[in-house]
């Protein structure tokens, strides 16, 4: 246990001293904060437009039929969550890759494995350190964006919102862990380090960007700006009835989407933050019941990738492929 702790402490120290890693994480934090500011301004613009509209109507003696835009503070975080989804995953890959690549490049593996340590000491220490780094990072990002929403967006948080945020932190943490574990496994098993980095990035490209994009494009409703059914003014029950004829196509699309851990993360966080209308302002219990399957999938992805990384990051694999 002490040795695992030593490895973890060394890894954290290393990340803290690496200018590249710190600037990547800092850059992310700034981008996330800026995105909340942008969303707040965007909301302000919409609220103003609504007021101008109402005033104009009032002047001509008509009451405004449209409802006023309502501020849901957690919605301001949407872009920040999407950054976690895209860039967070990329950075998780970079840190996971670096944790293993550094040891291979420095030639320190043989120093580590000629010491009386267990087969899993190194990987447990490294993953432990990265898990800690990600927990701290996600918490800081969520906290900072929330503070920005309160200050710049004049948002007010309720006690339930805090609960929703905590669940969001948990989900984001697991999501980043998945990507870190994937990169650790690939870096451990690859013979050439640059290949490992590129393979991880191609995987990221496919899972984070391409599959969800393909899923979205395949959605018939997305083919017309504003939504196919909305533009044809078709009610929800009729829409469901029509779509019932296309179960084959839709289940293919769904299968594609659920193969991507990113989609589960998106559904999970969007539900808790109320970004998905269906879950907006619902009690946590209701949301939980709705996204239980996505939470479960996130956990399964995490357990699966972590177990794989445990078994691929053994002395035998690492030494075979070093240099």
């Amino acid at each position: 246990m002490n040795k695992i702790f030593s490895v973890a402490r060394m890894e954290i120290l290393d990340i803290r001293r690496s200018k590249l890693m710190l600037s990547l994480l800092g850059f992310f934090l700034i981008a996330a904060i800026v995105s909340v500011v942008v969303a707040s301004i965007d909301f302000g613009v919409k609220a103003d437009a609504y007021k101008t509209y109402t005033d104009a109507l009032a002047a001509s003696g008509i009451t405004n039929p449209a409802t006023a835009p309502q501020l849901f503070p957690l919605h301001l975080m949407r872009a920040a969550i999407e950054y976690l989804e895209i860039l967070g995953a990329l950075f998780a890959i970079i840190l996971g890759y670096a944790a293993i690549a550094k040891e291979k490049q420095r030639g320190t593996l043989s120093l580590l494995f000629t010491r009386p340590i267990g087969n899993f000491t190194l990987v447990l220490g490294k993953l432990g350190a990265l898990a800690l780094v990600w927990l701290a990072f996600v918490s800081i990002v969520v906290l900072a964006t929330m503070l920005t929403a309160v200050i710049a967006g004049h948002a007010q948080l309720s006690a339930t919102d805090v609960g929703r945020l905590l669940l969001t932190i948990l989900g984001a943490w697991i999501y980043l862990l998945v990507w870190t574990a994937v990169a650790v496994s690939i870096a451990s098993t690859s013979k050439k380090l640059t290949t490992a980095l590129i393979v991880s990035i191609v995987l990221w490209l496919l899972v984070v960007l391409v599959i969800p994009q393909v899923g979205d494009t395949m959605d018939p409703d997305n083919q017309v700006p504003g939504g196919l059914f909305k533009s044809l003014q078709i009610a929800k029950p009729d829409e469901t009835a029509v779509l019932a004829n296309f179960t084959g196509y839709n289940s293919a699309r769904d299968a594609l989407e659920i193969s991507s851990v990113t989609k589960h993360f998106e559904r999970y966080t969007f539900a808790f933050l109320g970004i998905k209308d269906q879950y907006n302002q619902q009690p946590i219990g209701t949301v939980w019941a709705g996204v239980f399957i996505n939470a479960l999938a996130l956990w399964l992805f995490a357990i699966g990738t972590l177990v794989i990384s445990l078994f691929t990051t053994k002395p035998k694999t690492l030494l075979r492929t070093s240099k």
Partner: protein
Amino acid sequence: MKAIIRQELLALSRERLPLMLFTVFVSMISVSSLIGFLTKTTVSDVWIRTREAGLTSAPNPFASLSPLYYARNSIIYIILVGTLMAIIAGVSSALRDRKAATIDLILSRPTSRSAYIYGKLIGITIWLSLSLFLVGVIAAVVISIIFGAALPASDYARLAVFFLLALPLLSGFAVIGMFAGLLSKRETSALLLPISFWAFVTFVIPQIGTAARPVALLNPVPLPPTSGGPFGALNFFIGPFAVSEQFKVASGKILNDPDISGDFSKAIISILGFAVLTSFLISMVKRTSIRGVLSE
């Protein structure tokens, strides 16, 4: 210079990483046309069902779509995969001589620094044009097969112009990769820095200018900027730097996509400006930094 270009082409054709991304690129472009076809068929059927159920009497909005509609998703794959491929090609090219320490052998011969850099750049650009040509031919063939007939000549011309426009975008990113490869002290940062830059240009800059959310940027149709507030001004200044968004605008117009709005000439200027500016800046890299030792 000729020797450097030839060496560059030979090396790129034998290296695994650029080739790997090229394979991903080719398969995504071919698959994307297919997905476009599947989706269009389905959505047409959805509409037919809707009409049969008596829910609408509007004409089928998909019946009259141009076959170029199927090429729409290629825009996204050029932005996502093509640019990444270009970056990797640029980095590998710049690192190659530093890693093998052959840079001293080259620079101790009567070869100027700029001949070396531009020789490499021209080599990469030729490689990128060949890749784009191949991808373009595949896309044209797949679309013709889906369409069930040869397209009108004007449509082929549009496709050609579209893939031609991708060249300055990709070579601009290749130069960004070369910058990192020539200047970085470590191999890892040489790869990471340009990829982070790419992520910044693709996902962060457009977000600031248009308040579009990052995931929405995966849509081939660029979102019009939010009107009012500071966004008009922000977008005026920041917009041109979002080259990938500008590429969506320009190629959407070229492919005759009715959903595209935006300033075509501004988009073209932005893309060409990106390529020209980066290629100009790379000539400023000093001899000493090219020879810098790679550590760790």
